[in-house]
């Protein structure tokens, strides 16, 4: 049964990218375990606003696990202690009366902090711009099933396409590597005939952009896979390695 619990939230405060950050702890009373984690933060912010203090800044949008906007490193896990869900899908029933919950921003050189719990994830957009698309001639829409695709390939492509670009993989990685994200974005297209046309160019330019932006080298530690809210498999990383090496040896 869901109860009302009293908790403390220890959140990271940082005024701007260059400012020194610090932790601030707020007690919260009578939080329903039925509320979501972000609703709990909403209540905290409402209290802060009522007290005339500055609210805690955090990212969110859809609040249903599909947009990739929410982040937060909660009690030692990106997206909190539950598996296979985003922070916005996390509920307070995962916490107990008297808990102190530590909430931090993603910490990685590739994702500099903007303010409090918000980090700059535009690096991911730049990687996508470098090649994470297919080029299609305009005109009347082509029939979706004109090209038959083996079921397994379609399934694997769909699994890779589940990546919402949240950046939890980078946040979890001891090397600040973006390989899980990039490998999902390369795989979702490389597995399909429509994506094969530009496959070599795509693998090379997305990896080049990833390196240029300062993300680390993958050591196959696998923390990304464990923390990914969409359960993206690291077998995608092997596929990216394969695509990239094939492209380079063709040169």
């Amino acid at each position, binding site marked *: 049964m869901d109860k009302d619990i009293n908790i403390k939230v220890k959140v990271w405060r940082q005024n701007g990218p260059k400012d020194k950050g610090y932790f601030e702890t707020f007690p919260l009373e009578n939080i329903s375990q039925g509320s979501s984690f972000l609703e709990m933060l909403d209540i905290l912010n409402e209290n802060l606003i009522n007290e005339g203090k500055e609210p805690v800044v955090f990212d969110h949008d859809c609040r249903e696990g599909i947009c990739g906007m929410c982040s937060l490193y909660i009690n030692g896990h990106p997206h909190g202690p539950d598996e296979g869900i985003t922070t916005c899908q996390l509920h307070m029933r995962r916490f107990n009366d008297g808990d102190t919950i530590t909430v931090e921003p993603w910490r990685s050189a590739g994702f500099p902090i903007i303010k409090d719990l918000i980090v700059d994830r535009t690096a991911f957009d730049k990687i996508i711009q470098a090649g994470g698309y297919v080029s299609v001639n305009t005109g009347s829409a082509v029939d979706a099933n004109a090209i038959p695709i083996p079921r397994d390939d379609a399934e694997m492509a769909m699994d890779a396409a589940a990546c919402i670009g949240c950046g939890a993989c980078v946040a979890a990685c001891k090397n*600040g590597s973006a390989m899980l994200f990039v490998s999902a974005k390369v795989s979702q297209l490389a597995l399909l005939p429509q994506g094969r046309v530009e496959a070599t160019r795509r693998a090379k330019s997305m990896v080049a952009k990833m390196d240029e932006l300062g993300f680390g080298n993958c050591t196959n530690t*696998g*923390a990304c896979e464990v923390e990914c809210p969409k359960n993206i498999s690291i077998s995608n990383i*092997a596929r990216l*390695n*394969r695509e*990239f090496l094939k492209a380079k040896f063709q040169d």
Partner: protein
Amino acid sequence: MSWLIKSSIGRKFVQSISGLFLILFLLFHMSMNLVLIFNYETYNFLANEILGANWWAIIGTGVIALGFVVHVIYAIILTLQNMKARGNDRYASSSKTKTTWSSKNMFVLGLFILLFLFLHLYQMWYQMQFKELFMIEGARHDGAQLVEEVFSQLWVVIIYVIAFIALWFHLTHGFWSALHSVGWNNTVWMKRLKVLGNIISTAISLGFIIVAIAIYLGYSNLLG
């Protein structure tokens, strides 16, 4: 070919190939050591006639040394870059993500192996091939006897065992990781490669350790 140093996957490719090459070398080295358990004469024959200071053995040594140097230099580059990419800010709620210990400590494990390697080269290779090559006084041709002398000291055996335990950890992650880095993997093979990696690391480490302990306890040269 500059992508082998400039791109992250290129660098991992080099690390992976050099690592796999070193595994092959260790398998060979371990097999040869096992001969010590059975017969000293055969071992000395192999060490002097097949290897020794012959031109092919010298080239072989050079290639293996090159493999090590490349592997270590890339290990340093990769590790430094990764520390930079991670940034200086640590999580206060320290990471609770479940990952294998060895995968996070490859550099420390490698350093330990490297330190051991220096001792090992001094005790064995320097006394045999190196001294013979540079006409230094006291080059040893009785490899088996030299090995026996070295392994009769308990501290050497202990360091030896610890080093190969470190190697075991290095390889249980390293083997499948290397094949992952060259792109050979998918959901089916990942499990098989991990099992194969465990078998190979155990065979290598155990093979080396058994010989050292057998010699220390006097259970070697069974036929001679």
